[in-house]
């Protein structure tokens, strides 16, 4: 069962048993969880006539006792406090409380204590505590996503909150799937280890009754890995539709904010929705590359023109009747066409202005092929190119540094200096910080495929065969990881098990959680892998959905904190 449907089922179950007019009250996190999978008109069908935030509910005192309040919030102490105030002075006729994660007994006690007027009808835990953007990809949308890079001593309480939230999210995913997994983690990452161990503690000790589901033949696998094992993927320019939109414009909970890109056609909405659930064109094109999308959009526009023409030709009453019948469909199509055309036009403008074709070719070469000398020259050329933007320069140098960390340090230094003189906006030492965080000594996986002979041979074979598309030749490290899992060759030394729960046989369901965030390139990789019917179903999750901007921002923030921390010490 895919994640999107399970969240939808939760919401359906929440709303269908309560008759009459309802108001749905959400908090700042559940609002994303709900609105990414459920629409306003569907809520209206369930007689939910008002959706409010938990903060604004307590701001007013007007009584609405003809409405029933359905709360769906995270069980945080702030939310419980707000609820307590609300229950002491109720505005609504009935209260149905749904929490998106495990409630503590003390919290239930506090709530029961404040419910003097006995307005609470039910208290339930519905584990939809994650944002399910695509069927096999979820995110936790965490704001302070840089924390995973810091050692535990710098900000112990912050890191505790961080890993608590991650454990909650992972637990909710498995509760929604009704499974208890065996847990493995990436040995080199402290944060991944910590999260894996805390998850295991929750599932096998603290709440072992709750997680005791019917045994399946083989237990599913939870693999906790660290973003820093593959720092390359979030640094690359993307050329498939969904990933490209996120990289160039920005995708938040399947919404694109078009205000950021300046000039807009007048009748265009300032925000558009890109959801594979609601938009058939997007669903069939989200993983296609840019060139193919152009062709497909042209086809769509042609179709649309045909329809528009037939609608212009109205002569008889029957034509009119037909027009009125088809009008809603027509209008929907019009909105969809203009949405995709706007997006693609804007993106091709950006590609042109930032010379992304040129940049991306070098990026892909750096990520996939060898040849240090040629790479050095290509990067130097691009650093000298005036139309290349600052962020692309920084990324090029980072990719070069990750790839040729140990070869020819003089040339690496020269690139650092050139970057510093060219793009003074970026702080000194960010590239060095990245190397310290995700350099070759820190990494577990064979990121560039140059560690063992087999991979080298495979790379050479690929080089001889030639590639279909230079811009999309990069395969994220996750692909290799998934392949090893499928073949049962994931090494116990690199990815140890937690506790004494070992894998028996091949798992059928695998949840890979990436501490530090996922990318849409990886989400695509997982979706394609699932469509091959290998018998294993993968689900990918992360603390955030990254594009290069977000990844660099997290990096800068971590650098700033660790620097000020070291000054203090």
């Amino acid at each position, binding site marked *: 069962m895919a994640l999107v449907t399970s969240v939808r089922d*939760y919401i359906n*179950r929440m709303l269908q048993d309560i008759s009459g007019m309802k108001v749905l009250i959400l908090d700042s996190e559940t609002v994303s969880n709900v609105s990414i999978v459920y629409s306003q008109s569907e809520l209206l069908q369930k*007689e939910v006539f008002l959706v409010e935030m938990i903060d604004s509910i307590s701001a007013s005192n007007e009584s609405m*006792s003809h409405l029933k309040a359905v709360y769906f919030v995270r069980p945080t102490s702030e939310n419980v406090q707000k609820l307590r105030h609300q229950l002491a002075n109720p505005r609504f006729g009935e209260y149905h409380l749904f929490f998106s994660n495990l409630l503590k*007994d003390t919290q239930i006690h506090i709530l029961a204590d404040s419910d003097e007027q006995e307005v609470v009808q039910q208290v339930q835990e519905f584990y939809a505590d994650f944002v399910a953007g695509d069927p096999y990809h979820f995110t936790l949308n965490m704001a302070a996503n840089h924390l995973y890079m810091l050692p535990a001593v710098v900000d112990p309480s912050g890191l505790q909150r961080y890993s608590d939230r991650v454990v909650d999210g992972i637990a909710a995913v498995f509760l929604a799937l009704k499974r208890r997994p065996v847990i493995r983690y990436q040995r080199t990452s402290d944060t991944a280890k910590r999260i894996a161990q805390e998850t295991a503690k929750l599932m096998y000790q603290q709440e072992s009754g709750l997680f005791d589901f019917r045994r399946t033949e083989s237990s599913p696998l939870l693999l906790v890995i660290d973003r820093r094992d593959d720092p390359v993927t979030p640094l690359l320019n993307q050329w498939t539709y969904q990933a490209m939109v996120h990289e160039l414009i920005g995708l938040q909970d399947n919404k694109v904010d078009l205000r950021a890109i300046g000039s807009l056609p007048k009748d265009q909405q300032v925000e558009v929705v890109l959801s594979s659930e609601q938009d058939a064109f997007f669903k069939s094109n989200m993983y296609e590359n840019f060139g193919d999308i152009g062709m497909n959009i042209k086809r769509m526009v042609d179709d649309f023109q045909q329809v528009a023409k037939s609608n212009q030709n109205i002569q008889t009453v029957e034509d009119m009747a037909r027009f009125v*019948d088809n009008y809603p469909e027509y209008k929907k199509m019009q909105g969809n066409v203009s949405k995709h055309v706007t997006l693609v036009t804007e993106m091709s403008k950006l590609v042109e202005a930032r010379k992304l074709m040129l940049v991306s070719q070098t990026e892909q070469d750096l990520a996939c092929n060898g040849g240090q000398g040629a790479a050095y020259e290509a990067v130097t050329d691009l650093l000298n190119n005036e139309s290349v933007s600052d962020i692309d320069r920084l990324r090029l140098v980072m990719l070069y540094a990750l790839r040729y960390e140990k070869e020819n340090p003089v040339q690496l230094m020269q690139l650092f200096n050139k970057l510093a003189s060219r793009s003074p906006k970026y702080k000194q030492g960010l590239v060095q910080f990245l190397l310290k965080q995700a350099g070759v000594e820190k990494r577990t996986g064979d990121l560039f495929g140059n560690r063992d002979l087999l991979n080298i041979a495979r790379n050479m074979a690929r080089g001889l065969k030639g590639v279909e598309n230079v811009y999309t030749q990069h395969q994220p490290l996750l692909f290799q990881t998934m392949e090893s899992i499928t073949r049962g060759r994931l090494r116990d030394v690199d990815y140890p098990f937690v506790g004494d729960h070992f894998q028996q046989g091949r798992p059928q369901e695998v949840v890979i959680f990436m501490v530090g965030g996922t990318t849409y390139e990886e989400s695509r990789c997982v979706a394609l892998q699932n469509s091959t019917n290998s018998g294993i179903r993968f689900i990918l999750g992360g603390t955030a959905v990254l594009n290069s901007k977000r990844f660099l921002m997290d990096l800068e923030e971590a650098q700033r904190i660790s620097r000020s921390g070291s000054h203090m010490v």
Partner: protein
Amino acid sequence: MATRNRTLLFRKYRNSLRSVRAPMTESKSGVGPVIEMASTSLLHPKRSYTPVSTEDPGTSSKGAVTVGLPPDWVDVSEEISVNIQRARTKMAELGKAHAKALMPSFGDGKEDQHQIESLTQEVTFLLRKSEKQLQRLSKGGPSEDSSVRKNVQRSLATDLQQLSMELRKKQSTYLKRLRLQKEDGGDLEMNLNGSSSRAEDDDFDDILFSEHQMSKIKKSEEISVEREKEIQQVVESVNELAQIMKDLSALVIDQGTIVDRIDYNIQNVSSTVEDGLKQLQKAERTQRSGGMVKCASVLVILCFIMLVLLILKEIIF
């Protein structure tokens, strides 16, 4: 899809706390149970009263009126949804009647026709009435539940639109098939006409048979006139429905667009509320200052004019 129900534990805690609290709060009791009673009676008319609501009737009724009574628009919306429900059942009947009327039968089918007519009229009437009431729903003073009202209106509008669309489809298919039948009938008539005229020309003796034929022709003419009338009626009601559709389409949300996003709506509401507040404050300020200033300046100008007039009067006369 695991869930965990914590209601029992919650109730347990609540009951145990109530027994602790009971002696303390006896003095200020009355509020809690009254609200319970008020909401209970309004929302679940069938549910039995809780035994706690044996309070002094004087105070409790007062509390119930102020706290528990839903606003007027709730009645309107309930009425609309009842009407929609009724229209829906009538629609089902209409579908059956259509099918029956189109079936070849030995009777003249007048009853069926009559039934269809009345049913169509009823459904159209219900839809129009609901639509009018829907417009009424949005009227009324600006209050905090205006967004609730708007959403109720939207959802009812969506229902209505669906229903009227269905009705239109039903009618147009009925109309089409009726026409088809009529054409067939027309051919038959032509044949009859031709043969009858030939009969008249050829043979005047067989007048009895001819009369019989004449009566037949008359009858079929009558039928065709009636059918014409029916078609006319159906066309009229289609037009009416088209109007309703137009009015409703302004209210219905386009699915799959940003307007249909829950988070977008929340942000929008809060920002529009803030905007509205700002505008109101601004208006208040300008109203206050503008009115005063205008009034004063008019008075000053008037004074000045009068003074000039007075001086002129003194000088001239």
